[in-house]
């Protein structure tokens, strides 16, 4: 087994601020993902990284940057926080391939004031 650790658990930011969310996994998985979960809207893919040196945009990449620092870590930056934004950002990982189980971290809850 393994674990995905996201930091911080809670993040309060101000409008216009640049905010960084971090994720570490010890599954030794090749592929990592960032999803955003809004209440009642399911999960939407922001960025993903198939292998250590790869970075690809998801459906919701506008307003975000991502960086795969090493195989075990993947960070997400909100480039300019939007006022009254509230969402949970979920980091996930899986082995290489399509028909695999994706494991999720416990999330970072973002509130922008």
């Amino acid at each position, binding site marked *: 087994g393994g674990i995905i650790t996201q930091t911080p658990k809670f993040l309060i930011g101000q409008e216009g601020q640049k905010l960084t969310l971090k994720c570490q996994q010890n599954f030794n998985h090749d*592929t990592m*993902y960032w*999803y955003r979960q809004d209440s*009642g*809207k*399911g*999960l*939407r*893919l922001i960025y*993903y990284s*198939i292998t250590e040196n790869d970075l*690809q945009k*998801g*459906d919701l990449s506008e307003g975000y940057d991502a960086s795969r620092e090493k195989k075990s870590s993947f960070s997400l930056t909100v480039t300019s926080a939007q006022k009254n934004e509230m969402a949970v950002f*979920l980091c996930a990982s*899986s*082995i*290489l*391939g*399509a*028909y*695999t*189980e*994706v494991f*999720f*971290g*416990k*999330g970072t809850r973002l509130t922008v004031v």
Partner: protein
Amino acid sequence: QQQVRQSPQSLTVWEGETAILNCSYEDSTFDYFPWYWQFPRESPALLIAIRPVSNKKEDGRFTIFFNKREKKLSLHITDSQPGDSATYFCASNTGGLSGKLTFGEGTQVTVIS
């Protein structure tokens, strides 16, 4: 554009009844359909998955029925238990190297005893 649609948005059943959750998709290249469940304040976790080579997948009280021609699938929870109360997400993947998933908006299931 919502590529994976779920209905109903919420569902309440009595303990012991069968809950039926529906999912439809638009992209005919999707060829892997996992269902994830999420308990309050927890992260999503894989429940059961199917590939279109089959039209049925069973795991205990949980069964997926798949209709490739109509691009529809459903999750049946038989003998529902209060511990099954959760939000259920239908997801899909087009294959390839990554396990990136497109999620529906979820069905919130409440089982009352």
